[in-house]
C-alpha cells in the first residue's frame, strides 16, 4: 500500500509515493533521481550512502523514507555553492588528492560536513573518529584526513553557507 509523502531534499520538496518499507536510499536514487548517494553494501556497514538528516550524518540504506518526513535531508548534490562553485570540503578533496575511485567520496564528504558543522576546529583524532564509519579502499585515508583539516581552516577563515 503506497502512500504519498513529502521529502525535503536539498531545500526542495519532493512528493513521492512510497511503501512503508521503502528505504531512503532507494527513494533518493530511484524515485528522486539523485544518484550521488551511493549504495556500497545496503547493510549500514560502509557509509557510502551517508546523507545529512537535520544536519546529522545518517545511513540512507538503513533508514525508512517515511521516517524522514518533515526533516531536512542534504545529499551530496545539495552542497554545491552559488554559481556552481564547490563547497570548501569538496574543493579540498579535489586539491589534496582525496579522491580516487570516488565511490566513497559523497558519503565521506557528508560525514566531514556533519563534523565541521558541529565542530569547526576538529583535531586529527576527531576527524578520524568521525570518518571511521566510512570505508575507503583506495586512498589509505591519509589524503582524506588532510583534506578535511584543510577544509576546516578555509571554512573557519572564509565562512560558508
Amino acid at each position, binding site marked *: 500500500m503506497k502512500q504519498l509523502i513529502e521529502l525535503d531534499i536539498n531545500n526542495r520538496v519532493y512528493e513521492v509515493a512510497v511503501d512503508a518499507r521503502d528505504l531512503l536510499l532507494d527513494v533518493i536514487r530511484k524515485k528522486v533521481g539523485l544518484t*550521488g548517494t551511493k549504495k*556500497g553494501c545496503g*547493510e549500514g556497514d560502509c557509509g557510502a550512502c551517508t546523507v545529512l538528516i537535520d544536519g546529522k550524518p545518517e545511513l540512507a540504506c538503513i533508514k525508512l523514507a517515511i521516517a524522514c518526513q518533515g526533516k531536512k535531508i542534504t545529499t*551530496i548534490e545539495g552542497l554545491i555553492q552559488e554559481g556552481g562553485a*564547490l563547497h570548501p570540503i569538496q574543493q579540498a*578533496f579535489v*586539491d589534496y588528492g582525496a579522491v580516487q575511485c570516488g*565511490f566513497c567520496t559523497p558519503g565521506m564528504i557528508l560525514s566531514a560536513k556533519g563534523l565541521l558543522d558541529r565542530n569547526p576546529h576538529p583535531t586529527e583524532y576527531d576527524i578520524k573518529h568521525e570518518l571511521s564509519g566510512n570505508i575507503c579502499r583506495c586512498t589509505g585515508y*591519509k589524503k582524506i584526513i588532510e583534506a578535511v583539516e584543510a577544509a576546516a581552516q578555509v571554512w573557519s577563515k572564509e565562512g560558508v553557507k
Partner: protein
Amino acid sequence: MDKKASKSKWNLTPEGWNLEGVPAYQDEKRYTQVGRSVPRVDGPIKVKGEAIYTGDMTLPGMVYGKIKRSTYAHAIIKKIDYSKALELPGVLTVITGEEAPNKWGIVPQAANETALAVGKVRFYGEGVAAVAALDEETAEAALELIDVEYEPLPVLLDPFESMERAKEVLIHEDSPGNILHEGEQVYGDVDKAFAECEYVLEREFHTNYPQHGFLEPHSALASYDPQNGHLHLWASTQVPHYLHRQMSIVLEIPMNKIRVTLPAIGGGFGGKGEAAASEFVACLLSRKVGRPVKVTYERNEVFFTNKGRHPCHMKVKMGLDKDGYIQAIDFDNTMDKGAYSGWGIVVLFYTASMLHLPYKVPNARFRGRSVYTNKPSTGAMRGLGGVQPRWAMECLLDELAEMMGISPYELKMKNAIESGHTCINNMFVPHTEYKKCLQTAVEKSGYLEKHGKLSFGKGIGMAGGYYITGTAYTLYQNYKPHTSVMIRVDTEAGVTLFCAAADIGQGSNTVMAQMVAEEMGIHFEDVNVQAGDTEIGAFDLGSFASRLTYAAGAAIKMACVEINQKIKETAAGMLGCRADQLIIKNREIYSMYESKKRLPWEKAVEAYTSINGSLVSLGNFSPPRRKGIDLITGNRVQGANIGHSPTFGFSAQVHEVEVDVETGRIYVKKVTEAGDCGTPVNPMSVEGQVEGSIMFNLGACLYEDQKLDAEGKHLNPNFHDYKTPTTMEMPEMDTNIVESYDPTAPFGVKETGEGAVQPTFPAITNAIYDAIGVRFYNLPITPEMVLKALKEKKTTSCDCKCSKEC
C-alpha cells in the same frame, strides 16, 4: 602546514616552469607536465556526486536482472523448475546455464567458467538461473519461486584434501587430481648450492583468503538491439577488452557487433579483472527480452563470486654462503584455486618468477600446483602472485639475518640487485633504485637505532618488494600491440586522446592527459581523454599488472612523433626556419637558435587544419619478449614468460607496531615507505597509490579473511563481519618517492600501485617478532594467535635470557 599550502598551489603559473637559461632540448628529463601533482580530471564531478557509475544509469524501457544462487558448494543440478516464476506478473523471462553453455575464462587454455552453472555447481552462491523483471523487487520475488533440485556432492575446501580425495570426487571432470596446473621451474644446481651454504633455513608459510572489497559492487547494463544485432554493454570492469572478447565467445556474436563502455568505476584491485557473471547475464537477458537489462550485485553477491587472493601453502628454503650472499632458494607452493580457473596458471607462475627479485638469486627451484576447491574462485588481487612469496622470503631473510647476527638491513642491502641485472630466469631489470629505497626507509624511520632495542610489546620491522611494469604477454596467443592510442588534433576538439584504457579509480585518464601534454608541448588541461570504450578508443588490454602508465606512455610518445613533425613543418613555413630546429613548449613553438622566431602552438594547428583537415596519428606499444630463441647464440632461452616485464618498480617499508599483550591486539603505529616508481608522472597520485597499498595489505595482514563453514557456506559476506581497516586503524604514514629515472621507459616511468603492497605483510610480521619475540607463519595475525603464542612462550621459555623481558 607549509607543505599543504604549497600543495594547494597546483595551478602553477608559467613562471613556475620557466626554462630560461637551460636549453630544454638538452635535457629530456626536464618535464613541465609530467611530474606535477595536478588534481585528477575527474575530481570535481566525483566530489559533486555527478560521476555516473553503471548502477546510476537508466535507459528507456530498462528492466532489472537478478541471479538465483546455489545453496550448495558442490552439487549436481538435477532439475530447475521456473514455471511459477514466469507466472509472476512483471517477470519477463528466466534463463538457466543451458542457454549459454560456452565456456569463458581470461586464460583461454583453461577456460572453464560458464555464465550460469551448467549441470553442476562448484561453490556456494554460484549462479544457477537468472530473471528479468520490470523492477528489482519483482525480480527478487521471482527468484524465490524458482525450484532447484540438487544432488549434493562431497565438498572439498582444502587443497590438500582436494588432491587426496580426487579419486573419489572431481570438481572438474577434465582436471585429474583436482589440479588446474602443476609446474616446475629449475634454474642452476640448487642441491649443490645448498650443500655449500653456511646458513640454511626452511619454513612453511600459509596465507589467508582476503578479497578486494572495492566499494562499488559489480554492475552491468546491457542493451541489445534486435533490429541490427548490436549489443552495447556498460560495465564496471578493469578489462574492457577481455570482457569484450569473452562476451563474443559466450553470446556467439562477433566482436564488431559488441561495444563495451566503461562509466565511472568504483575500484577494482583485480576483482574486476575478469568478466563477471553479472555481465553475461545482463547481455543474455537483454538479448532475450529485447530491452535494456541492468544487473547490479548486492554486497553479499560480490563476496560469493569474488576472485580474491589465492591462499598459498608454501615451503621455502633459503641458503646463504658464509658472507651472507643468497646461494639458493627452493620453493614449493600449493595454491588454493577455488572453483574455476580464471587467472590461475598466470598466478601460479608469477609466484615462481617473484623469487628472482629484488635480490640476486643464482640458483632457484620452484614446484607449484594450483588446486581446485569448492570455494569462490581466487584470481587477481593487487600485487598478484607477488604478495605471498614476498612475505615468505622477506621473513626468512629476517630470520637468516638473526642467525648470522647481522641486521636484516645489512643482509638485504648486500643481496639487493642493481641496474642492469639479469636474473637466472632471464628476467632483466634495466634500472633500479631498490638500494636507495631500503636506505631511505631505514634512515628516515630510525630502524637501525630501534631494531632489537624497543621495550617488550613494541617492535620495528622492515621489508622490500617490487613489481612488474608494462607486462610482456597477452593472455591468448597473439602478438598484437598491447596498447594503441589515437590522437586527434584540430581546431574543433583541440587535442583528443582515444584509448580504450580503463580508469578504475587509479587516475589513468589524468596521467595520460599529462603525458600527451608533455609530449606535445601543451598543458594537461588542453587534452581531452576518450577512454574506456572499445568502439571509440583504440585497443588496450586493460588495467592490470601495473601496465597502463608504461604502455600508454610508450604509445603516446609514438603517436606524437608524427603530430609534432607535421605541426613543426607547418610552423616552419610560417616562421621561415627549419622544422627540425623548432621546439614546442608551453603552448608555443619557437626556434631553438633564434628565440624571437616563435608563434602560438594553436596558430600552427589552425594553419595545418585549414589546409589538411584534422591531424590524426596512431601509436602503439608492444613489450619486448625475452623468451624463445636467442638470435645470436641460437640457444633456446629458457625463462618464465610470466613476470617478464620491460622494467620493474620497487618499494621498501618499515613498520612500527605495538602489541597489546593483554588483548593480543596489534597496532601499526607508523609506516615509513620509500618507493622507486621511476618518474612520478603525478606525485600526488603516486602517494595516493602507496598509501592505499599500505592500507590494503595492512588489512589483509591483520584482519581480512573470508570464512566458510564445513559445507562451504560463506560466513562473512559483508563488511560487518569481514573487517577492513577504517581511519582508526591507520598508522602515521611517511611515504617517500626516491629520485629515479629509467632511461629505457617512456618518460622514465615505472609502476607504483602494486609494488608498494608487497613489503607490508613481511614488514608487519617482522615488526611483531621484534615486539614480542614470536614469529608467525600464518595470516592474518589475529589477537587470538598473539595471545596463544604469548602463553606458549611463557610456559616454554620463561627462563630465557633474551633481551626482551618475557
